[in-house]
């Protein structure tokens, strides 16, 4: 059975490779903290499931301290612009094939892998099938690229290093935020916010109540970085008791559009790092908040539209 653990092993090996390439480059220009950071991350993927929670926690803290001064980016491009232009002309549109293998194989894998049964056991754990499919798709795509392009043997890992160092510590931010979310939940942060919201928001009319619900969803999502965390809190606090029960709002309309109001918040918050901060790093934007700034106008207009939709469709006339 292929579990997530096998994919974590691949991740660990890639990160260890990135750490080694950085280590070998230390003499020339790379500081030691790049090596340490990726090596610690590799340990968490390779052995995290077998270490104690406290040891894992200490490893994460060490990573954070190592990255607190920022990681260096490897400036050297292995290929020259001329060589790339020449290669692009030679390969033409076939260059897109390995890249497109990733989404297509992920899709087919998540559709089919869960149904494959060998000797009575499922090939892939059905609960983890999407992530496993993504992991396997990247392997298939890499094999395609290697067979097709025949790059030098170490090119995959040196190229992965070039991209990973340019993303830097932002690569780890989504996981750290998930951990923060868990600590927020354990400390009851959501309940406190819901109490504050119901105490201080104006809720006197149906329209005021849906406005408070939609804006509350967006604001709480901005704080938590995740509409899924905001939804139960806001719906239990305002959505169900006020909009649905007191003002007889349609529960389907209210909750469906309420969730989408939360998504407007997701577009505006650095806490949703994998959607907003990671792409800024991945696209090598100088402004870390560049993607958020590009999304704020859409998010605000759409939030307003959601309030109008709620006010119009939630209350049967």
């Amino acid at each position, binding site marked *: 059975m292929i579990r997530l653990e096998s994919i974590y092993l691949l991740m660990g090996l890639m990160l260890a490779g990135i750490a080694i390439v950085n280590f070998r480059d230390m003499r020339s220009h790379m500081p030691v903290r790049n090596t340490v950071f990726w090596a610690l991350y590799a340990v968490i993927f390779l052995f995290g499931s077998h270490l104690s*929670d406290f040891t*894992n926690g200490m490893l994460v803290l060490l990573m954070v301290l190592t990255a607190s001064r920022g990681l260096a980016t490897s400036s050297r491009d292995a290929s020259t612009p001329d060589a790339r232009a020449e290669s692009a002309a030679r390969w033409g549109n076939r260059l897109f094939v390995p890249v497109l293998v*990733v989404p297509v194989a992920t899709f087919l894998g*998540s559709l089919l892998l869960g149904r494959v049964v060998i000797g009575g056991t499922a090939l892939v754990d059905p609960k983890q099938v999407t992530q496993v499919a993504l992991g396997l798709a990247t392997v298939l795509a890499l094999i395609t690229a290697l067979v097709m392009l025949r790059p030098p043997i170490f090119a995959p890992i040196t*190229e992965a290093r070039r991209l990973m160092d340019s993303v830097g510590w932002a690569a780890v931010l989504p996981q750290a935020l998930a951990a923060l*979310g868990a600590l927020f939940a354990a400390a009851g942060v959501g309940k406190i916010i819901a109490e504050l919201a119901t105490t201080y928001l104006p809720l006197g009319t149906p329209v005021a109540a849906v406005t408070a619900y939609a804006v509350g969803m967006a604001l709480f999502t901005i704080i938590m970085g995740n509409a899924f965390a905001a939804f139960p809190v806001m719906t239990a606090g305002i959505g169900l008791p006020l909009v649905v029960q007191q003002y007889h709002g349609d529960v*389907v309309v209210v909750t469906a559009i309420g969730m989408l109001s939360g998504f407007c918040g997701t577009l505006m918050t650095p806490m949703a790092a994998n959607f907003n901060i990671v792409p800024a790093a991945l696209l090598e934007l100088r402004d870390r908040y560049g993607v958020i700034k590009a999304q704020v106008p*859409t998010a605000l207009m759409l939030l307003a539209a959601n309030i109008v939709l709620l006010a119009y469709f939630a209350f049967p006339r």
Partner: protein
Amino acid sequence: MLPLIGILIVILGFAFRLNALLVVTVAGLATGLASGQSLHDVIAAFGHAFVESRYVAIVWLVLPVIGVVERSGLKERARDVIGQIRAATAGRVLLVYLALRQITSALGLVSLGGHAQMVRPLVAPMAEGAAEHAHGPLAESTRERIKAMSAAADNVGMFFGEDVFVAIGSILLIRGFLEQNGIIVEPLHLARWAIPTAIVAFVIHGTRLLLLDRRLRRESLEAAVDLAEQQAQPSARDGASA
């Protein structure tokens, strides 16, 4: 109220643009300590949640593929291909991607997009290439805006497409939450009520993408005028001194 200290730390940290990883970690530790846990327990809880959410990082496995193909000229090819289409502009390229992303997400094909898989290797280079083809060399700030809008198109398309699909996480979460509160709803009804917002999202963001083209055109005209003035001025001065 004390556990809210974590939120305060996060807001201040992001506002002052401190290292976000450090800010988030400190906020987590502070929240745990403020709710009365011991330091040992808080570190253990942080480590546990971090290890449990390793699955969000699997997407990085795509980097060796992208790196190897970029090394062979992927971005250059993406730009050339789009340059051959005369009607292509940055805004229209992104509009097409927004539509594709939204439609495929609505059909449950969320995995057909993504920042590492599609935006960095294909979408952003194509949008840049289209803009370069239409307006000539781009200023760095213009390039940044096009890249940021490329990432935004992926996010908006996915967020406001996926909820139209019945079996997506958010629909199941809504249904599960309501069920706990004794209300039974059909996932299909929830998904249907995601459609109005999906349409509005496409109209709003699509319009902004077309306005991006207008802005790029204006900026390139202004740049051309500036250049012409710069070239004209020295000759005028020469004339005065003569």
